[in-house]
């Protein structure tokens, strides 16, 4: 059984693969189209759930395109983070909407004209920027193992640039604190009373 499996897989493996750089170009383009279309559909649907997950789909397509560009880690982590964030965001979008989040015609656009202008301008600026900037050419070929790019990312984060982490951690802490302060309607003092012993109010520590 094992032997047959072995032989078969080696036969299949030795069949030559098509030129993948072309395929990659096709994949990136197709995924880009998917990302744009799903992103545009966000504004067309009448359900917060659909809007949220269309946006997630758009991000997934972007992540896949990044993977196709040989940046495995960045691509997959975009998918990971965006699925997670959209799942949570969906909850908030549904919860905080001014009307029924699923069954009524709705518009995801606010002050459409200005938004359109802003979006158009930023698109033009970015595109022009991309085209005009004199991008550096890399001296060597990109590493054949996409894992190597992940490694360099880690190296960049951890090696000489302690700064990133040292800046990010207080920011994250501030985010947690600020977020909880804002979100937590009934903090410690409200639950436990001014002496924090839970005696002045019912409910107490559980």
């Amino acid at each position, binding site marked *: 059984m094992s032997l047959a*499996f072995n032989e078969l*897989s080696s036969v299949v*493996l030795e*069949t030559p693969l098509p030129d993948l750089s072309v395929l990659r170009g096709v994949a990136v383009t197709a995924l880009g189209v998917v990302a744009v279309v799903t992103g545009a559909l966000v504004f067309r649907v009448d359900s917060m759930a*659909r809007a949220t997950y269309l946006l997630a789909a758009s991000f997934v397509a972007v992540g896949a395109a990044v993977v196709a560009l040989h940046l*495995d880690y960045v691509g997959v982590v975009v998918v990971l983070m965006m699925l997670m964030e*959209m799942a949570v965001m969906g909850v908030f979008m549904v919860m905080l909407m001014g009307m029924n989040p699923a069954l009524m015609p709705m518009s995801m656009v606010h002050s459409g004209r200005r938004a359109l202008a802003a979006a158009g301008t930023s698109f033009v600026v970015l595109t022009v920027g991309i085209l005009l900037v004199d991008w550096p050419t890399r001296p060597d070929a990109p590493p054949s193992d*996409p*894992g190597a790019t*992940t490694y360099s990312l880690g190296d960049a984060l951890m090696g000489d640039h302690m700064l990133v982490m040292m800046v990010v951690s207080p920011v994250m802490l501030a985010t947690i604190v600020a977020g909880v302060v804002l979100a937590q309607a009934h903090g410690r003092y409200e639950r436990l009373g001014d002496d924090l012993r839970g005696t002045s109010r019912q409910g107490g520590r559980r």
Partner: protein
Amino acid sequence: MGEVVQVAAPWVLLAALLLGMAALGVAALDGALAARAACRPASVGAQHPLVETARLLRQRRRTTVAADTLLRHVAVGGFAVAPLLMVAVVPLGEWVLADASVGVVWFNAVDVLVWVLVWLAGWGPNAAWSLTGGYRFLAQAMAYELPLMFALTAPAVAAGSLRVGDVAGGQQGLPYVVWMPVAFLVYCVGVLAFSVRGPLSPAGGPVISSGVLAELSGVDRLLVLAGRAGLLVAGAAFAVPLFLGGGSGPLLPGWLWVLVKTALLTAALVVVRRRLPDVRPERFLALGWTVLLPAALLQLLVVSVVVVVRS
């Protein structure tokens, strides 16, 4: 064990077959245990998956008034596909379907996909019980996901790689479970949680009338049931290269060891989840943040210190 070889796409069929059989096995063991608890012949209970499959194939599909049919279908289909996406990066001995350089992160991404699927399964039918199930699952996800992520990184740190094959290969002689048991346990809790069944099943326990399953019938229900059994199997299968030494072992060929280890861990998880009562997300939330998360971080610290000292 040597290098991991990536096999061609058609082998996906074999993976799907193995996964399907294992999922049947999970349901059979579940049925047998339930039958034994009720003092009925275990063999009758073990037929449960076949009987249930026949029943659901025969049962008519059913949707609800003003349901979000698209999202419902995404959820139902997604449940069937997600376990496959997980096992795709698990090496079966020396073969793997997708030798991704960031296989560990990929697994993580798929387990987050489960959040989406469960919530959509809850949202889709436009029904109160389903909706409640979906939301309660997300509440639980807030508790298990971070510890699970850190548990996933511990073996990767030890192996210095996010490629699943490398992680499996990095534990010659000494499976990681031996010196990172906490990470393994936290990982198993995560698997129990994302397989939407047993003690960590706020999305579908009897107490909320089976929640996200409440409005599903026929093939929709079948796919979701199969998918969640598959998720348990996929979770167990991924633990094999991560913690249990991959295909290494005496006498048997590597691929067989992987299957044996997966089967044993799956069975153990099925037994464990039968023995534990349901844990409500509000209880689990505090546990996840104050016990599981610090424990996983501590384990990670130990592992990274060992790695630094060793290098």
